[in-house]
């Protein structure tokens, strides 16, 4: 990428030079991508300057953008809309038309949205944007790319050639709790309480609950330690959520170099073989949804 080239392509005000013959986008021809509609400021719907376009993702403007743009021209977004792009400052925003000022948040749309991001992710580093983010103008998109360009580039650089894997560890709550209680029995200590009063019963119950919670927490902590040791060789970034629900003991995400899924899966299989009462649910590779570090307000 060459910033000087992009400035020429985009223009100083970021809105006027989309028809520049040197522009990567202008080399594609109008039919390949409806980028000119955006570039020329022709309103997609509604009032002038209105975009009502959903922002899907941010990616790097490739030195040779044609493959990406050609690829995007074959993909359809929410409401079967064509995708379009706005590039600025070495970055590319991927958008899809909605023609609306509000978006429907239903399962189908969310899945289509995920599919678009997934498709781009397969060949390019991508920063996913949360579903439902509508941009009201081309200038707003360019302003976004300008203002947060540095942060976007830092994230894109950090996430280059990386993919996210997700591991959920599930158990049967009843069997799991029984297992923890059995462990508690094995290490049972004499109660410090004496007598037969109601308060004693209450305190005993509270003590048991406290001991159970501690034992459960220790169990999960040991499991986390075990996983961390097992996957240490992958040099991953990871995040763990413990006891997300009665069924989900662990909800973890890992950021790996692309192409390590097979070896990572084998490592998790070792763990599965060791813990037969647990169910290991590994998914991915995902775009790095959980590892984008941006706080935009």
């Amino acid at each position: 990428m060459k910033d000087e080239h992009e400035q020429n392509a985009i223009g100083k005000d970021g809105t006027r030079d989309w028809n520049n013959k040197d522009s990567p986008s202008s080399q594609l021809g109008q039919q390949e991508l409806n980028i000119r509609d955006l570039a020329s400021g022709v309103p997609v719907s509604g009032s002038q300057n209105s975009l009502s376009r959903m922002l899907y993702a941010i990616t790097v403007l490739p030195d040779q953008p044609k493959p990406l743009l050609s690829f995007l021209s074959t993909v359809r977004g929410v409401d079967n809309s064509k995708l379009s792009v706005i590039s600025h400052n070495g970055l590319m925003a991927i958008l899809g038309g909605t023609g609306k000022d509000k978006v429907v948040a239903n399962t189908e749309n969310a899945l289509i949205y995920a599919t678009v991001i997934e498709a781009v992710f397969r060949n390019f580093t991508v920063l996913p944007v949360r579903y439902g983010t509508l941009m009201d103008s081309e200038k707003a998109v360019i302003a976004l790319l300008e203002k947060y360009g540095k942060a976007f580039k830092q994230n894109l650089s950090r996430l280059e050639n990386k993919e996210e894997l997700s591991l959920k560890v599930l158990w049967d709550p009843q069997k799991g709790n029984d297992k923890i209680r059995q462990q508690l029995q094995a290490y049972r200590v004499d109660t410090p309480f004496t007598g037969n009063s109601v308060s004693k019963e209450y305190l005993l119950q509270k003590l048991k609950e406290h001991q159970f919670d501690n034992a459960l927490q220790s169990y999960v902590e040991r499991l986390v330690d075990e996983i961390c040791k097992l996957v240490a060789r992958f040099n991953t970034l990871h995040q763990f959520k413990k006891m997300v629900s009665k069924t989900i003991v662990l909800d973890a995400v890992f950021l790996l170099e692309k192409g390590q899924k097979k070896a990572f899966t084998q490592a998790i299989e070792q763990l599965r073989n060791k813990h037969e009462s647990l169910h290991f649910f590994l998914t991915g590779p995902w775009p790095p949804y959980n590892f984008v570090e941006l706080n935009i307000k």
Partner: protein
Amino acid sequence: MENNVIEQSKDVTILEILDRVLNKGIVLTGDLVVSVADIDLVYVGVKVLLSSVETMEQMKYGTYKKREQEISSDER
């Protein structure tokens, strides 16, 4: 329980997709954004079972017949 876990695993998959799309990634707030969909209601009616992104694509390109009840922000 085994079957329950499998069923839950399938549900987890779809929830994982939705959780990522709706809760993760870059979040923009401020005057750049016209509106941001309220995500909470999308979890209503999550019944579709997925095992892979490929399945998603099959759904996208024709085999997806079941349309969840649309919950637009207009209705809220």
